[in-house]
């Protein structure tokens, strides 16, 4: 269970607040999608939810981040890493650069946490198998495709066994194949009950994976509800979010006065 309570955040040196009075909760096993135009605060939300803001980047945080009911404001980043994992949109910057194989790359996090190496090896094997990248284990992570690197990054997070995952536009810089790889992985994680917050422009992807959608606008929550409802809400398009393809088509048909039922 992860919760942002009355959270406002201002980046160091910034004049305005990037998040204003945000309340967001993520229950165990829930997958929440976050949408919004660029610079609406999706990344900021991810940084706060993972603890990186303010711990790694400074800035002023008002309100509280609660994980499993506890206020974690006093805890340093390395204690939060096993509670919340965060994945970014640029696959390359997430590689440690010091691992020659995917196996070592995924092991990086748990090794940092000082976990015994037998246990680390077990965890790495488990996460690699959970995401189906077993055959990449001996490959050099720097030579993989963007989508594959993202999978390795997510594995690296899973190996720390956090109960919550935050993904900040994980498919934004990927080609269709990479997007498919990562979407499938997210689907299987959701099926296994991993609690996730996924920030994305790709509403078609979110439609498949999320039970709830939150829409951000200028740092505040504008919509928060069940996936199907929010994605069909006309307000979404006004906010600058492209609805999923079926919704767009439906709207085009409605505008033309056609009451045809679309095939499933």
């Amino acid at each position, binding site marked *: 269970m992860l919760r942002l309570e009355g959270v406002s955040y201002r980046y160091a040196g910034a004049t305005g607040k990037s998040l204003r009075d945000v309340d967001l909760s993520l229950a165990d096993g829930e997958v929440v999608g976050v949408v919004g*135009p*660029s*610079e609406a605060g999706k990344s900021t939300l991810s940084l706060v939810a993972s603890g990186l803001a303010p711990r790694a980047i400074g800035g002023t945080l008002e309100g509280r981040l609660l994980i499993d009911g506890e206020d974690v404001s006093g805890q340093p980043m390395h204690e939060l890493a096993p509670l919340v994992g965060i994945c970014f949109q640029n696959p390359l910057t997430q590689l440690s650069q010091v691992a020659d194989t995917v196996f070592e790359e995924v092991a990086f996090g748990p090794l940092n946490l000082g976990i015994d190496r037998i246990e680390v090896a077990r965890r790495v094997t488990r996460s690699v198998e959970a995401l189906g990248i077993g055959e990449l284990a001996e490959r050099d992570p720097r030579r993989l495709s963007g989508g594959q690197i993202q999978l390795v990054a997510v594995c690296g997070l899973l190996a720390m066994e956090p109960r919550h995952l935050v993904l900040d536009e994980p498919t934004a810089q990927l080609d269709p194949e990479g997007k498919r790889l990562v979407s499938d992985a997210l689907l299987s994680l959701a099926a296994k009950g991993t609690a996730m917050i996924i920030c994305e*422009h790709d509403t078609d992807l979110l439609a498949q994976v999320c039970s709830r959608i939150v829409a951000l606008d200028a740092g505040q929550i504008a919509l928060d509800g069940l996936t199907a409802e929010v994605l069909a809400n006309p307000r979404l398009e006004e906010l600058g979010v492209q609805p999923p393809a079926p919704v767009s088509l439906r709207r*085009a*048909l409605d505008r033309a006065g*056609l009451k045809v039922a679309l095939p499933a």
Partner: protein
Amino acid sequence: MTDLSCSALRYEYPGGVRALEGVDLVISAGERVAIVGQNGSGKTTLVRHFNGLLRPTEGRVLVGNLDTQTTRIAKLAAVVGLAFQDPDRQIFSGSVEAEVAFGPRNVGLRGAELEASVREALGSVGLDGERQTNPYDLGYSRRKLLTIASVLAMRTPIVVLDEPTTGQDARGIRTIRSIVDRLAAEGRTVIAISHDMRFVSESFSRIVVMRGGRIVSDGTPADAFAEDGWPLLRSTNLEPPFAAVVGARMGLGPTPTDRAVVDALVARSSGVG
């Protein structure tokens, strides 16, 4: 009128990788062409031949009457503007204004003409209010729009965009679509590499599909996304847009866009077609 043509174009990278295996392509002035295909199909290699960044291993690329094999890149850049995918591998100025002025100045624009080109370009991407802003204070999607503006300002007759919609929100995509429309209206050629099938079907009149260093299909969106073309698309890791899938399921014939679905249904219900 600047046409662009590739004849029997082959390209092999220094390490031995054969990226283009015989491409014949003619793009007439004013066309809107999208080039699609999986990673490694040769799309990026192909467009880098258009401004001389790469020179053919075999075959010929003509831009107007300039042979890229023997023309300096700086000279070709005045005819073919190429906007790259990653804004952070390009932006170097401390202000939006200076960044956009770099390209046009290089190709010889000065004074009032330079100022006009910068102003127009900034206007078309919606950054006219940010002239003095440091590019790194802009978010990723606006930095990308900045790099597109930097190329637009060069006023080249041919504009090539590499993955313009990647990382963009809905407003950014709308901006890019209006840029493509405006360029076409001005009679300028627009070529885009994209993996966004929806963007491609809605904004371009010609789709060139590549696979394994060759062109495997070349036609209108309706041709490219018609049901019998789907196996070919899938062989290069592409999926038809949703509208095309729905249209096929409802037996409407080729419907690459939402608009086409609407038109087909209207036609059917009024007893036509």
